């Protein structure tokens, strides 16, 4: 009886050790989300193309003299409100997308999720 109890206890101990090991040394490490900034000035998004990781944050800052916005180009899936000079818009990136200013359609930018 005493031996049987010892075996069960050992089995629990080994299982716990394995569980701790696998949880600590798993191959998938979650990247810490980063913050990026896109400036809007001289009628351009700068940088016009930005590489990010899923979950990163992008802050769009309007440093131009006119009102702008940031709008997903293909289906307007996401977009900022109108940004007066000095205003900013923050978003978490979930997928790659092309975007533009719907007020000035020649202003275009791109977010590339790596």
């Amino acid at each position, binding site marked *: 009886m005493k031996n049987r109890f010892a075996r069960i206890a050992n089995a629990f101990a080994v299982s716990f050790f394995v569980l701790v090991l696998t949880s600590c040394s798993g191959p998938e490490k979650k990247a810490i989300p980063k913050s990026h900034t896109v400036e809007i000035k001289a*009628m351009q998004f700068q940088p016009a193309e930005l590489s990010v990781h899923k979950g990163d944050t992008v802050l769009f800052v309007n440093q131009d003299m006119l*009102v702008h916005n940031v709008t997903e180009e293909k289906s307007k899936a996401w977009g900022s409100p109108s940004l007066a000079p000095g205003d900013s818009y923050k978003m978490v990136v979930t997928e790659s997308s092309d975007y533009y200013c719907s*007020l*000035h*359609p020649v202003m275009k930018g791109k977010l590339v999720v790596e």
Partner: protein
Amino acid sequence: MKISSISKTGFGAILCMLGFSASAFAQEKPKLSDPEVAFVAVTANQIDIDFAGIAKQKSKDASVIEFANTMERDHKAVIAQATALAKKLGVTPQNNAVSKKMLADAEKTKKSLRSKSGKAFNKAYIDNEVAYHKAVIAAVETVLIPETDNSELKQLLQNVVPALKAHLMHAEMLQKKYNK
């Protein structure tokens, strides 16, 4: 404020680009002071706001109306900034022969636009926006900026150029649609 002179040839060329008759001015070798440059800049913006107003009244095309809204919004913003700068500098923009001629010619264009309707109006409005922005960009870059003495006024004019170029590209984009 220092009075700046504009060469006869350069000024005449700019007036031609703006669709004006250069003859009245070329002979006089006109000069523009900074207060006069400020007035010309405000006038150029106001003229395009007026064109936009006509487009909003006459067009039913969503792209044209959106473009007109953008012209109205942007050019009003530029006028507000120019007016604020003039106030800060203690300068009163001065009417002058150039702005008077610009307004007179704009009246002719407005009359022509008002006489059109439907697709003909859309085409005429957008064609005029392309030509007008080309002329204004040339005038700002080759005459108004070089002839301006005050650094803040010069900087404001320089800051406006990218917006004018974006407006031109937007207008050209629409022009392709109406010239198909």
